[in-house]
């Protein structure tokens, strides 16, 4: 399994956003599935995060215009959900579950290990922009605790050794 790296569009290119034809087409498809434009807000935001890597104020303004909502309203929604990146993310976002099951099975050890190996704590990014560590609440995979989600993929039953191997592979692939 190969985890896809996030390619975040740099902030200076996302100050003012206009959707290209491909995006417009997909947004139109999303609109068809919902009774109102407002109801399509989350899927459209997901689409944008997929496309740009993160949600900049420029993206919010573009989405608001497309959905005929106020930018403040859209930003309120974006900031409510922690899974929307409001800053350009690293290529690989390590989401370490810190809820009970994972905590009991050694999440703290993994956090320490990442701190030692990459020098980053929760909420921090490596200087080269490859890795970013986030502490997240239950990922719903307690059977495989401790769990790390990297971008879209789950890595279960993690140990410091397996983590080392994973990090090396990811660092090599980029």
């Amino acid at each position, binding site marked *: 399994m190969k985890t896809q790296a996030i390619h975040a569009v740099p902030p200076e290119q996302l100050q003012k956003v206009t959707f290209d034809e491909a995006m417009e087409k997909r947004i139109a498809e999303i609109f068809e599935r919902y009774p109102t434009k407002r109801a399509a807000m989350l899927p459209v935001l997901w689409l944008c995060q997929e496309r740009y890597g993160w949600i900049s*104020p420029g993206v*919010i*303004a573009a989405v*608001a215009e497309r959905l005929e*909502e*106020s*930018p*403040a*309203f*859209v*930003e*309120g929604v974006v*900031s*409510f959900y922690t899974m929307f990146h409001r800053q350009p993310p690293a290529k690989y976002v390590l989401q370490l579950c810190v809820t009970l099951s994972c905590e009991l099975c050694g999440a703290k050890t993994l956090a320490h290990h990442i701190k030692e190996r990459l020098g980053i704590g929760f909420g921090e990014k490596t200087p080269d922009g490859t890795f970013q560590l986030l502490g997240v609440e239950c990922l719903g995979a307690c059977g495989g605790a401790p769990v790390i989600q990297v971008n879209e993929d789950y890595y279960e039953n993690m140990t410091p050794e397996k983590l080392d191997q994973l990090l090396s592979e990811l660092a090599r692939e980029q």
Partner: protein
Amino acid sequence: MPKLTIDGREVEVPQGTNLIEAARLAGVEVPYFCYHPYLTVVGQCRICMVEIEGQPRLAIACATAAADGMVVKSATSQRVKEAREAVMEFLLANHPLDCPVCDQAGECLLQDHAMSEQGGNFASGMLETRRTFPGLERRLLGPHVIQNQNRCIHCSRCIRFTQEISETWALTYKNRGNNAYIDTFDGRPFDDPFSACAADVCPVGALTVREFRFRKRAWKLSSTPSVCPGCSIGCNIWIDHHERIVYRFTPRENPEINATWLCDYGRFLSESLNQQDVVHPKRRLKEGWQKLPWAEVFRALALDVKAAKTLRVVASGYMSNEELYLARELFARRLQGELVVPVFMGEPRKMKNGRRQWLYSQSALPNLEGAKRLGIRTVDEEGLARFLYGAADLTVVLDPQAHPFLATPEAVQLVKVSPTVVAARVDAPLLEAATWVLPAASLAANEGTWVSSTGKVQRFAVAVAPPGEARPLWQILALLARALGFADLAVTTPSQVFQWLVESEQSFAGLDWNTLLGAEQTSYRERQHVG
């Protein structure tokens, strides 16, 4: 209509009334923070919980409609008391204890409730320190609103205001739960044309009005019912003043016109009422200005007026109906002069009434409708220029602010050619051309009635005494009438003139001076603070 009992008091209320309003009608006060009579009910703060007989759980009064036969307990229920104490404990866990330095103190719902109902007795079981929002303690949210997020109790009134009333949708919560805070999109300036209303609806000191902040403690202010002079809509206001200084306008409830709102433009006209550049009556002589006592002024002026064969008078859409009536009676009917009221549109303004309908200004003048009802000729800029063109024995300008044209060099030139009497409050180019300058008092020192563009006759009351020798215009007109020998026009109060209006003018028939103030109804401000 449902009939119910609240704390042992029986009351009959209109269908659909919620329990907060029903309780108020019964004379019982139910506390609330997030509820506002002109905003959507969200039931967020949970402080308005009441016990309803037959229902096992406590209910929130704001979102419960009164029903026939309901037996409600509020202050008389121990369970309610405990529930409210619990809510307060949560709210005060993070609310800073900075009332002494908070500008909202004295008109803060949280403070009022903490002190009155809870008796100021609290024990918090919290061991953690208070949650704070570094960087958001003293932040200029917009041109008129200062935010202190630490004080916010997350009632969402300000957000709902921008969504439902001003319709700019400018404010929102950012983040969620314990970290939620009020912000605009990308932190941009909150430049809603009604922005200060967001501070009004804020039940605590999280949003305060920049212009009023720290100028005067709320409990020192006296409030006088008045009407906004900003445009023809005629929003009802309180003039808040202390020791002859006007500190602010706050909206006065009127469901027909401005609900509990006021636009920023109108609100911040308050400061201008303190301006009184002209404080003495004076006459221009060859060697310069001569100050005269009022008695002298009227004697000498009466001679000038009598001697004038051609008399032209510019009245104003800012004048009250009583002043316009006196001006019409004196100058047009008795002295056979020509009288006009200049008209101009000014910036268009709008306001939302209690039924959430937009009202739009018809002109910049608060009493243009009154002038029309009195049958006084109205003129636009061109008409005014034509009116002032050529010489007359005497020109009287009752208000240099009546039209922007009167401030132009052209108008000064037109007026200069003949003797001119100007009644003024603030410096104006026209004063250079005047032969007589009479100090007129501001709206805050005047009383009378205006007719809004929605056709409502509204009275404003005297808030402060006029500064210096300034006098309200109605008094100047009445005393001039006496000096001219028209003793019947020498009224001592505008209410006498209003009585003549009621008797002689069809459109004023049946009205009563004493009930026109609107302040005798318990307004929202008295029920609980708007600001």
